[in-house]
């Protein structure tokens, strides 16, 4: 199992594409990467979850933490996700009301 994190810039947004499984073992790497991006002044972050095979509550916690950190800088963290099994985790926990979730990176970076 592995987690890969790829950062690209698009239309003034920083897109963090996540591939692999996000769980208690790999989530700390996602957290570190988000913290690093925020400390570099990247305050509009789109996390692309389309390549994620598995996401559990540890991963949700990291995303919530990232959103909180960005909002304290007047920034935002939005998501790209169309996979039903991943969306379901956000729905069950009520986090669909907390995150803006887009269908594509294009839509997420259009504003």
């Amino acid at each position, binding site marked *: 199992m592995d987690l890969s994190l790829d950062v690209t810039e698009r239309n003034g947004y920083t897109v963090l594409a996540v591939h692999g499984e996000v769980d208690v073992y790999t989530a700390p790497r996602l957290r570190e990467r988000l913290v690093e991006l925020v400390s570099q002044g990247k305050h509009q972050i789109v996390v692309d979850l389309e390549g994620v095979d598995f996401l*559990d*509550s540890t991963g949700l916690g990291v995303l*919530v933490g990232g959103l909180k950190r960005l909002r304290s800088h007047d920034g935002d963290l939005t998501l790209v996700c169309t996979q039903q099994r991943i969306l379901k985790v956000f729905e069950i926990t009520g986090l669909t009301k907390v995150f803006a979730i887009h269908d594509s990176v294009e839509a997420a970076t259009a504003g």
Partner: protein
Amino acid sequence: MTAPEPAPGSDPIELEIPARAEFVALARLVVSSLASARREIADDRIDDLKLAVSEACTNAIEAHGAGEVDERVLLRWWEGDDRLRVSVEDQGSGFDPQRLRDHPPVTDPERLNFERGLGIPLIRTLVDEVDFTPSQRGTRVSLVMYCGPAEPDLEP
């Protein structure tokens, strides 16, 4: 919610993993493979079971804290006629799920202060029965999922 005891005479399959984060993926893999190989069960239910087991293993590992290197988490798998039952048992000092703090509503800005504690609500939603019991070792979480019958050709 009480998970019934498995049918008499059904011997569990057991998997014991070190109580370390890198082994949770292995537990997920084994559980989803067992479910898909042996049962008539929809893919999305396998995903539910996999996530519930993963959450239970994560809690079990966190119960050990930084932990002794030789601590273990024990998974047991039983098959009933119409259900699967998976238990996850740790050797930690235990916790009381009844004493978990309630989170503020998701629309409350305070909600963002809760980065943890989402695992137990997830487990409760994903499986049909869940039961937390103190065991001799630590805490045992039993998960039950209702599903179709075992594939006859695969019966031992």
